[in-house]
């Protein structure tokens, strides 16, 4: 059977070449679709692990401002998040990790903040407001700036949950060098609360460098300058703010960003927090924005694969039906010699599979080029659809899409073999069955006629 199949391919070289080019085209398009699909999947998984799985408990400023009488001062103190509130949420389902933050400003006699021009003339700035920003956290492990590598540790280490009650701190590289501070050095900061000066000694255990920052703007006050931020454990924040109960925010890191909405519903149901005053804000906008574009890309790729599979099968069926018509004669002869119908179909299948295997091997080399070209087309059409025209995309999204790794994986190769095999089986069985349903005599008669 193998010998006969090879002989047939060799003798019908025109048909063989035609089928080869069609199958090469199909396999290239299929592998392009598959690799775009898997690249989108992979990217979504990465996004899920990197972005938007956090929910923050904060004061609902919108409601707070609505409740305020005209001319009335905003009482921020009375609406602060308490440790009790934050703790009531941390053990809920979906919460994988959490971080409480207390932000306050502080001064120091031994450490000078890095000055920004015009900062001393900022309108509305209180005299007792410090030049340094204290960011007290349960742990630094999940802070966006560090996980996104916008801030990078250059020496020492970051604060962990174990440092929560310590006087350890992590400072910025420029602040450290301007004040001749290095890991192991100590300095004192102080705040003034209700005319009471509260001092806290801090020990430097880590120094970080800012790679890029969303916060720093020209003309910002130096207390807003991220180089003046000192990261400490939560207890330092409590000491300096003179409150063991109040927090600035509580952030909860969920097991899956998809669960954000369910988590908020659960918190509303299971806790006694007044959600008119406070709110749980899901920070999944970035994820939703990127995920939806990737979802679209994935579903386009899926649709694309289906179109290619169905279209490719139809074209192959048609061509094989036309060429098999010329093989009535051969089928009739084989049947008259006692060959079974199954073996006749198997020989046809073998012929097409030999071509398909060569086509697949070639498409493994050319598939990536096809995948990238098709990806570019899909991406641009998607941008046009989303923006109503080729408008500017935000930088993060653009970077993220540019980096989509459209490469061929081993899973793609297995899928390609399976899909091409299925297309070949359908393309052979449909026209062959059409002929072989007839009796051998009818087949021979048709050939004769």
């Amino acid at each position, binding site marked *: 059977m193998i*010998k*006969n199949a090879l*002989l*047939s391919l*060799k*003798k*019908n070289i025109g048909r063989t070449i035609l089928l080869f080019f069609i199958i090469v085209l199909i396999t290239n398009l299929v592998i392009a679709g598959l690799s775009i699909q898997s690249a989108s999947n992979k990217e979504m998984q990465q996004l899920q692990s990197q972005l938007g799985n956090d929910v923050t408990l904060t004061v609902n400023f919108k409601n707070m401002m609505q409740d305020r009488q005209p001319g009335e001062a905003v009482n921020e103190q009375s609406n602060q998040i308490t440790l009790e509130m934050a703790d009531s949420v941390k053990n809920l389902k979906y919460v994988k990790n959490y971080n409480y933050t207390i932000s306050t400003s502080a001064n120091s006699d031994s450490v000078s903040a890095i000055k920004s021009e015009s900062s001393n003339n900022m309108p509305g700035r209180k005299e007792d407001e410090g030049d340094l920003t204290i960011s007290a956290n349960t742990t630094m492990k999940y802070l966006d700036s560090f996980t996104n590598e916008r801030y990078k540790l250059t020496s020492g280490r970051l604060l962990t949950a174990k440092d929560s009650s310590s006087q350890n701190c992590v400072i910025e590289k420029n602040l450290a060098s301007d004040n001749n501070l290095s890991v192991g050095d100590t300095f004192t900061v102080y705040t003034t609360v209700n005319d009471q000066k509260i001092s806290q000694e801090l020990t430097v255990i880590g120094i970080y460098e800012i790679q890029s920052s969303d916060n720093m703007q020209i003309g910002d006050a130096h207390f807003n300058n991220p180089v003046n931020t000192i990261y400490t454990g939560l207890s330092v924040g409590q000491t300096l703010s003179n409150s063991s109960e109040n927090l600035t925010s509580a952030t909860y890191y969920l097991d899956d960003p998809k669960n954000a909405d369910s988590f908020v519903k659960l918190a509303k149901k299971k806790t006694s927090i007044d959600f008119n005053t406070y709110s749980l804000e899901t920070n999944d906008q970035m994820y939703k924005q990127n995920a939806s574009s990737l979802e679209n890309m994935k579903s386009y790729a899926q649709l694309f694969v289906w179109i290619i599979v169905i279209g490719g099968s139809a074209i192959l069926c048609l061509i094989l039906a036309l060429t098999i018509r010329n093989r009535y*004669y*051969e089928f*009739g*002869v*084989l*049947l*008259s*010699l*006692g*060959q*079974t119908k199954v073996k006749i179909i198997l020989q046809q299948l073998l012929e097409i599979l030999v071509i398909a295997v060569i086509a697949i091997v070639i498409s493994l080399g050319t598939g990536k080029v096809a995948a990238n070209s098709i990806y570019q087309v899909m991406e641009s059409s998607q941008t046009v659809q989303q923006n109503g025209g080729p408008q500017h995309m935000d930088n993060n999204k653009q970077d993220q899409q540019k980096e989509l790794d459209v490469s061929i994986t081993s899973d793609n190769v297995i899928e390609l073999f399976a899909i091409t095999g299925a297309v070949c089986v359908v393309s052979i069985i449909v026209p062959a069955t059409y002929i072989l349903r007839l*009796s*051998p*005599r009818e087949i*021979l008669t048709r050939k*004769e006629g």
Partner: protein
Amino acid sequence: MESLLEFKNVSYSYPDGQDDHPVLKDTSYSFEKGKVYAIVGSSGSGKTTTLALASGLDSPQEGKILYKQEDISQIGLTKYRKEKMTIVFQSYNLIYYMNALDNVMLALDIAHKKIKNKKEYCLQILDQLGISKDMALRDVRKLSGGQQQRVAIARAIVKDTDLILADEPTGNLDEDNALEVMKLFIELAHQENKCVIIVSHSLTLASMCDQQLKIKNEKLIDYFQ
């Protein structure tokens, strides 16, 4: 003589509009080994249908066809065609993408005949029929009509079945080649004890056979009856 193939009360008809056009009706006939039979008649008389039924390419609507007293539908038509009989067609029915040798060997492969030195055996049979090794390895379409028919006969002989059927085997051949082919069939019947059934419209060639048959009133009967 031993009956090899037997038509027993066989009926067959074609659908013809709303009615059926009968070809054979309750006909019985017995074919023996060692004889050459010729079924003669004009076009449309039903002789090719008779051969199609005898070769298992089609089935009768009524009655049975027995091979060595066993109903061929019980044997299985594919198995019957594969192992019990061979057929030679007017248009040779060779596989065009194979050479003569491959065509002959194909019949052995399909029949699962285990023969030592299969290639040599097939070349030897082809040589006996006047097809040299050089010709046997040539593209089958480059052989003459007479040579192609000899290859088709070699393909039939190589299986070494007791029953050989031939549908107008000399129809595309000139007189000399036709005579050569007829001699081959007669030799096979008389020397190898085969049963050869030939369908032909030529009374001249039919007269060379041991028995002449015709289809009259939907019955298969002796020609001179």
